[in-house]
């Protein structure tokens, strides 16, 4: 769909000289960017906090995420910093546990679709011919639809549940990676260092993996970062619609979905889980933006992402 936005894919090829920057200078560049770019620093801090919370959830949280109590719909207090839900479960605890599912789904789906998409893009761009044709027809088909809609279609077909959500979101984001990779390969393939490698008899696979792949890394890294935030939004949306994990699991989308019955009585149920989603996505977007600057990738090059 976003052909027009991302056709400059090749433009960043020249900017990839960063691969030649000596390590010490590169390290300096990263710290410099983090220091200068307060947004990125804030994003990194927020995200680290979130990841820390997700990993150490059982030690940080004061209650069991499914422990019920007689304190139904209690407003935030010292005992329950973010209040309790309709079954008397501690909201703070459930939000921390919710970070586990959100971050897990966000990272796993993007890693999977990155691997599959990059392989598809490499094959299509490098070998051309019928392989390219088959892969491109498939990508074009997906490109006609927003990622979230594809995820909904796939859940419609596969059914609900955590593993189906992971499969659906992975497949939905696949085409972005394949398209960006293919675009990069097409430009890099024609460059002299590839010809040089080929002329000294380097095999196709080695050229692909050792020469072309590293050179196309920058836009793929940026796309992957931004995609994590959209994958988290997609999971939250699917859970909210009741298409995600099973009802008792604490996830941000599900807590928000349940909150709908208590709008007038329990604002905290509707506000805090959404805030958790927003802050997570925001910090990833901040990081993605900083990465785009550091790696010098053009804005909107990284496919639609939505």
């Amino acid at each position, binding site marked *: *769909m976003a052909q027009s936005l991302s056709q400059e894919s090749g433009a960043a090829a020249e900017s990839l000289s960063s691969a030649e920057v000596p390590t010490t200078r590169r390290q300096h560049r990263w710290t410099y960017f983090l220091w200068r770019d307060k*947004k990125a620093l804030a994003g990194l801090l927020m995200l680290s906090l979130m990841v820390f919370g997700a990993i150490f959830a059982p030690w940080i949280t004061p209650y069991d995420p499914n422990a019920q109590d007689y304190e139904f719909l209690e407003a935030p207090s010292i005992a329950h910093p973010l209040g309790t839900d309709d079954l008397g479960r501690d909201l703070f605890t459930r939000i921390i546990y919710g970070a586990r599912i959100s971050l897990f789904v966000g990272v796993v789906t993007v890693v999977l679709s990155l691997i599959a998409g990059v392989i598809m893009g490499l094959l299509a761009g490098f070998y051309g011919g019928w392989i390219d044709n088959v892969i491109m027809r498939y990508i074009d088909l997906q490109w006609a*639809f*927003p990622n979230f809609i594809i995820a909904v279609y796939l859940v419609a*077909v*596969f059914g609900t549940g955590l593993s189906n959500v992971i499969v659906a979101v992975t497949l939905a984001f696949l085409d972005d990676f394949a398209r960006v990779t293919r675009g990069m390969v097409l430009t890099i393939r024609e460059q002299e260092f590839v010809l040089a490698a080929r002329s000294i008899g380097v095999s196709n696979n080695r050229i692909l993996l050792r020469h072309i792949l590293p050179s196309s890394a920058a836009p793929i890294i940026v796309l992957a970062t931004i995609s994590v935030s959209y994958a988290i939004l997609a999971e939250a949306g699917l859970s909210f619609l009741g298409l995600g994990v099973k009802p008792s699991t604490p996830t941000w989308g599900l807590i928000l979905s349940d909150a709908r019955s208590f709008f007038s009585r329990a604002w905290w149920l509707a506000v805090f889980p959404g805030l958790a989603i927003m802050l997570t996505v925001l910090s990833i*977007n901040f990081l993605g933006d900083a990465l785009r600057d550091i790696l010098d990738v053009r804005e909107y090059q990284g496919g639609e992402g939505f």
Partner: protein
Amino acid sequence: MTRYIIQRTIYALIVIWAVGTLVFFMLRAVPGDPIGAMLADVDPAAADALRARLGLDQPLYVQYFYWLGNTLRGDLGNSIYGSNVPVNQIIVEAIPRTLSLSLLALVISFTLALVAGITSAVKKYSALDHSLTFAAFIGISMPDFWLGILLIIIFAVNLNWLPAIGYKPLSEGFWPWLSHLILPAMAAGLPFSAVITRITRSSMLEVLQSDYIKVARAKGLNERIVVARHAFRNALIPVVTVMGIALALLISGTVVVENVFAIKGLGRVLIQGILNRDYPVVQGSILVVSVILVFTNLAVDILYTIIDPRIRY
């Protein structure tokens, strides 16, 4: 041009056929059928009778051609959940709701984004620009359904200004229709207008630095005219380019937002269908949503050649 339109239309039809066919076969490849889920435990004989009546006992390819033939004749079958309503009827009722919602969301998001984007560009690096950029970041990161919930809590539950949920057709009056759509349209449109704001800003900045703008200023034109007449028009081109994506994303946003506001549009029909495992409804609504998405995209591409005559296919 005509040739281009014909080619694109044929391609669009192929995409829709491919999606319909894929969904048809994948729904049947997944183990467990809806009749089994509904009846098998209770009454296996009745389940078999129902399967025979719906043609589900036929070989898959026969079912496919039945389905294809019926769909081409405009018959999407009957809902198998609850009161066997024709899917056509459900969808005909749903389409105006989804279209009203997405068009209003489009108007809101573009108006807001153009104003914010131009202001940001004209007052580059000012406090206003920074706060608008920050607001755009927040907007991009906000889930649309959460924004919907917050809007309901603020404007419907606490301030009591607008209805919280539901939909009134235009035939019952303009205000009842509009008042039910304002909050959902904002929920679907605002996150998206953040994206447009940023595109408008960068496009406007680029244009404002071009030579013809310098000339316009040098000859003493009023800055307002320079911005509104000279710069804005050209700055609009990249914005129009993303119109297709814009509409597609708004439609995908309405799928979720309809469910927040209990508006029985296509999105809610689709989601309810999935939750009820009502396959004819799922298939029908996926088909219609796909038709809308693919043809909107086509229409925008054609519109684009009209707005920017430099583009030729």
